[in-house]
């Protein structure tokens, strides 16, 4: 479990992390999103007992990160974007070295190392020095190292960075498995799809502050309840747009041409009810419907809006709805 209250960290006059509040229960995955330099790594370092906060407090796996950072470090596993291996060592030597530092020894250590090597399908490489390992293999070794001492909390910073799709999928499967084994996981990633698939909660950090915090679905819904509906017609129907605009729960009706076909679009908060009615009316007007496409706001749209890099594709009311769930609560 992770609890952080008003966690802040300054480097001179620069505020790297500003008043961050987090609460991640056992068996939950929190994804930390944000641009480079937003404060994700500093937040993780403070929570991992690697760096003392300038102010605020945090409790990780039952221990205070300020008063007992060594106890915190003994109970967490950390994987950074760079695997950070001693490349001249063999895999078993490397894992045994870290196992001993964490207090494992004898048959338990050997069993654990052998189990992880088998688990990560690295058995055939265990006699080779790790200098020749691929990025994916190195990342697996880093994960094995982080799991050696069976930590209750895991900090994974870009764990799938640079991995091929199959290796990345394997790592994601592992993360889900670890969650089911009641590990608390903090996942720093730039892969919004990965965050959406894996995380129970997402916190978006910008300039050291949490600017949005909630479940992936909550963030999307909080951004706007509207669904954008596009209906493609085989040929124009003069009364179609007026029919759509006549609906009470429809906004921003529009008609355009795309690839020589008429596309009608509108927004609605309740597509389940509105779409069948409108489609029925259009068919009644003689429209030949080619396709119907519904789009909710993606996490990428929410993220772009929060970090201020791109204008919103749909709606414009995101920030006010989301700020405060994380940092202000």
């Amino acid at each position, binding site marked *: 479990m992770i609890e952080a209250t008003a966690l802040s960290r300054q*480097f001179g006059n620069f505020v790297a992390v500003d008043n961050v509040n987090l609460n991640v229960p056992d068996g939950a995955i929190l994804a930390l999103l944000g641009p480079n330099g937003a404060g994700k790594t500093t937040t993780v*370092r403070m929570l*991992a*007992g*690697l*760096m*003392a906060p300038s102010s605020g407090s945090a409790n990780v796996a039952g221990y205070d990160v300020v008063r007992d950072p*060594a*106890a915190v*470090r*003994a*109970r*967490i596993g*950390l994987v*950074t974007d*760079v*695997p*950070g*291996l*001693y*490349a*001249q*060592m063999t895999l078993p030597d490397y894992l045994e*070295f*870290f196992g*001993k*530092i*964490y*207090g*494992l020894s004898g048959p338990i250590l050997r069993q654990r190392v052998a*189990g*992880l090597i*088998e*688990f*990560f*399908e690295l058995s055939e490489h265990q006699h080779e020095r790790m200098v020749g390992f691929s990025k994916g293999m190195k990342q697996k070794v*880093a994960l094995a*190292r982080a*799991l050696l*001492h*069976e*930590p*209750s909390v895991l900090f994974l910073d870009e764990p799938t960075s640079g991995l091929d799709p*199959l290796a990345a*999928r*394997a790592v994601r*499967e*592992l993360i889900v*498995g*670890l969650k*089911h*084994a*009641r*590990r608390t996981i903090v996942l720093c990633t730039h892969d919004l799809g990965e965050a959406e698939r894996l995380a129970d909660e997402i916190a978006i950090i910008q300039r050291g502050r949490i600017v949005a915090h909630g479940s992936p679905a909550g963030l999307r819904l909080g951004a706007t309840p509207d669904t954008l509906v596009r209906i493609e017609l085989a040929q124009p129907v003069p009364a179609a747009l007026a029919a759509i605009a006549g609906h009470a729960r429809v906004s921003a009706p529009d008609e355009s041409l795309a690839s020589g076909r008429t596309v009608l679009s509108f927004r609605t908060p309740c597509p389940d009810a509105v779409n069948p009615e409108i489609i029925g009316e259009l068919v009644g007007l003689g429209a030949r419907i080619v396709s119907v496409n519904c789009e909710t706001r993606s996490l990428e749209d929410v993220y772009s809006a929060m970090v201020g890099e791109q204008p919103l594709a749909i709606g414009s009311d995101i920030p006010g709805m989301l700020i405060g769930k994380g940092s202000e609560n």
Partner: protein
Amino acid sequence: MLQPNVLESPVVSPLRPPSDLRVMFLIARRGSVEALRDRMTVMMSLFFALILPLVLVVAVLLPLKNDQSSLERVLAIYVLIIGLMPASSAIGIASGQFAGEKEQGNLTPLLASPASNLAIFGGKVVCAVAPSIIFSLAAEVCYLIYLTLFLGIDTLRLLPPGISLAMIVLVPVTSLFAAIVASLISSRVRTFNTAQQVSGLALIPLWAVVIGLSFKLQDWGTLAVVAMVAGLALIDLALTVASAKTWRREEVLSKQ
């Protein structure tokens, strides 16, 4: 694709962490083995241990073969010079231990472990100094062999036992000082090259002072050289304790 046995492991309470001394040993052993696998370090150390004593004996001491008084004066000081040359590799190894590992990104896992600051810093200092001491010892043995081969076994009798022994002890004591200073510098800069350059600049004067003082103190007798060794050993001890107490892992991270 992944077998589930590892995932089924229960979340257990952590094991009792090993003592600082044990962790220090583990870090020192790993680092030393890695340093001895580095071809450049080994080649440089072998040159200093095997070739340089030969060059010095042949080029400097052999011409003095018939000048016993001059030979007597320089034989002991060459024990120190020849021992200190391979010890310079301690600077390179120490530079690699913090700054080098930071550059390669493999320092963070160790810093994220429950190992204490004392164990990490102490382990890295020992790992920097241990291989260099092995090569220094080899250099001293080679020196004695070359003296015997080129100047005859009787030349060994010209080595003053007390001062020679003090010179031999001075080698690890000076190497340790160099390793501590280089480790401190290495933990506070960003790159391996910077660490090596700053350490070199800081420690070359030390080498000169130690050799110069030893040369002078020989005239005052064995006790003066022993006092110098004891003094430097005390400085080492104080510096080790002070460094380990003041060194902070977050300082290392903040330089990344």
